[in-house]
């Protein structure tokens, strides 16, 4: 089980916030990952390259950090595949329907003092907590 890691959590959060500020300052874009990905799934002239570039940079940055530092965790394996696929589908469907995820609503939307993002963030955090309670503690289907 993981433990409270205040310094790396805050440091990571500040970097994510800085990345969001820079993207707005330079490109005028909101750093919402589901939105950036959804926009990259359909081709629009002049709108696809920066999205692919952002995602590629994010993968490179995350991978480089993980591979270059002593690994803080071992990647999870053996998680039930059905649960994984259902979860992925819901995350993809829900973030498009609700116009955002943890980064777009949680980090950027709250920073813009958007009421929509505040309501969305409280909703997905609340539903996430309820889901873990049900699957872990009531049904026991989640490891």
């Amino acid at each position: 089980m993981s433990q409270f890691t205040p310094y790396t959590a805050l440091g990571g959060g500040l970097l994510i916030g800085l990345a969001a500020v820079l993207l707005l300052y330079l490109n005028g874009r909101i750093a919402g990952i589901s939105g950036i990905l959804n926009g990259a799934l359909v081709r629009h002239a002049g709108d696809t390259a920066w999205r692919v570039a952002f995602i590629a940079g994010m993968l490179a940055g995350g991978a480089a950090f993980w591979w270059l530092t002593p690994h803080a965790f071992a990647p999870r394996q053996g998680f039930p595949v059905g649960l994984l696929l259902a979860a992925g589908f819901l995350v993809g469907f829900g973030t498009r329907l609700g116009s955002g995820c943890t980064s777009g609503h949680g980090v950027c939307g709250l920073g813009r003092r958007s009421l929509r993002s505040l309501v969305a963030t409280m909703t997905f955090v609340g539903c996430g907590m309820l889901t873990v309670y049900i699957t872990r503690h009531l049904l026991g289907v989640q490891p």
Partner: protein
Amino acid sequence: MRRVLAAVLCGVLFGVGLALAQMIDPNKVLAFLDLAGTWDPSLILVMGGGAGVTALLFPWVLRRSRPRLDSQFHLPAKRRVDGQLLSGAALFGIGWGLAGYCPGPALVALTLGTAEPWLFVAAMIAGSLACKVWLDGGR
């Protein structure tokens, strides 16, 4: 071209932030969502730290007439809290709680060398496209 380079730079910072905060470990995220277990409040500091920086600096950025490398800001136009927002956020929250991945960390986890994130991301893209078809059909 400069916009693409700027996006790479921002993406790298974002990815390092996610990895430093251990958000690419789904067990870390689930430990935050598990109030009845050994609760780990780290994610509050990740989201709070990120939102703190944007709350402080977004107003300063948005006072400009335009971003550095584009002719205009591209901001969400929707203002109303409606059923789509609520049901979408709820479905996302359920999926998030089921596996511990939200979109950014799931994408970065593709680089860890295990099959799990690939299955999740494939299903996530399928869900996103299914929602697009469903929304377009309703018009």
